[in-house]
């Protein structure tokens, strides 16, 4: 009888744990606040360990990464050399284009983030584990950072603050696909919803009314509609490809991001919280 009782107890223990995990998943899906608070507390508590690790193992870690990414680095070096040559040739043209972009943004009343204050931060680590596109920044609630604030680089939107500790915060990158951002295509009244789908520089924009004409090369910025998690007019990227889905009456676009979410060193947290 003993083994049967033991098996029964094992089964009930495992079932209890499974039900607990499912309950936690459900609470998490419904945005249960204490779970995020617990994560913030743990993140703050554990981060000194990460800092110490980076200090101690930083040089070894760099050597390790260089060893394993050697092929990539060589290829990337070649690409950069080619790109450098190309950019030298296009420098003047690029300067003109940048001026044109700025003029265009001003013309349609789009100051980059405008007067909204930002907190300059340094990226101190990537994500823990192997899933979930996140980075950790070296500023937190003491600098005014609040959950949900947009995070940008000098070139555009990269993500939003997910967890906040006292002196650091975790940012979920837009390319990870864990959240959506409403966007507006400049020069049109086309609005849609952009989200990542696992590619480092491309977002997918959906829900654009098929009646709106959108074409390659047009600039997408955050729409900042009422209730949006993002302020208006943060540059996102340029429309790369456009196709229509007649069955769902929507236009779908790929957006090539201005900002890259790879190899980030610095980022700015926009001190903006949604209104309404």
């Amino acid at each position: 009888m003993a083994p049967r009782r033991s098996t029964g107890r094992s089964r009930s223990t495992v079932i209890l744990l499974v039900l607990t995990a499912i309950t936690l998943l459900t609470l998490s899906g419904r945005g249960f606040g204490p779970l995020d608070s617990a994560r913030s507390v743990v993140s703050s508590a554990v981060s000194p360990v990460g800092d110490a690790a980076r200090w101690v193992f930083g040089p070894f870690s760099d050597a390790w990464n260089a060893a394993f990414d050697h092929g990539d680095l060589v290829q990337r070096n070649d690409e950069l050399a080619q790109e450098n040559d190309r950019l030298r040739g296009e420098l003047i043209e690029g300067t003109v284009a940048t001026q044109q972009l700025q003029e265009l943004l001003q013309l349609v009343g789009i100051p980059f983030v405008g007067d909204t204050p930002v907190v300059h931060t340094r990226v101190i680590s990537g994500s823990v584990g192997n899933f979930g596109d996140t980075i950790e920044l070296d500023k937190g609630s003491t600098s005014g950072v609040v959950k949900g604030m947009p995070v940008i680089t000098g070139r555009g939107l990269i993500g939003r603050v997910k967890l906040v500790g006292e002196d650091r915060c975790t940012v979920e990158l837009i390319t990870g696909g864990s959240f959506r951002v409403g966007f507006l295509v400049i020069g049109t009244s086309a609005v849609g919803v952009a989200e990542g789908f696992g590619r480092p520089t491309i977002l997918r924009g959906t829900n654009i009314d098929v009646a709106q004409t959108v074409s390659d090369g047009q600039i997408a910025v955050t729409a900042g509609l009422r209730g949006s998690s993002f302020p208006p007019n943060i540059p996102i990227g340029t429309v790369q490809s456009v196709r229509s889905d007649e069955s769902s009456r929507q236009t779908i676009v790929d957006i090539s991001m201005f900002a890259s979410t790879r190899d980030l060193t610095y980022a700015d947290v926009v001190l903006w919280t949604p209104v309404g």
Partner: protein
Amino acid sequence: MRTVIRFIMLLLTAVVLQRFLFDQFRIGDIAADAFLVLAVATGVVCGARQGAIIGFCAGLIFDLLVVTPFGLGALSYLVAGAVGGLLEGVVVHSARWITMLVAFIASAAGVLFFALLGSLIGTAGMIGGHLVTVTILVAGSTSVLVLPTRRVVKWASSYSDPLRAAVHS
């Protein structure tokens, strides 16, 4: 009580190892998973039930460190620990390579479960070519790390090998 305290120490050690070591030394941006190693090693040494319990606890701690849906790690590592225990339970003679194979399969099951369930509940970017690489590398590293971890888990669980005990008696 002593066993519980020892396992808590192991879980804390896993946190330090993950942050201190594994996250710093990645291959192709993929890190070994200390929590998964602990879950699988416990399953292998102590059986499916213990593996599931420690897997659940390790997964909960993992969930506190990441931004993926809370509970996903707990459920997935529970599966990995239980699978590790179940597979080891059906093995008659546990050679080292068999333990490594069991660890590989159990951790692969955990990673795949994590990605599939995450994808099912709406987390984007979990399934793709990346998943194959993550599964192989994480399962591979777990199969290597499970051997030293097995010894530590034996210490924590005050495990005594029945065969060895019989020989010494």
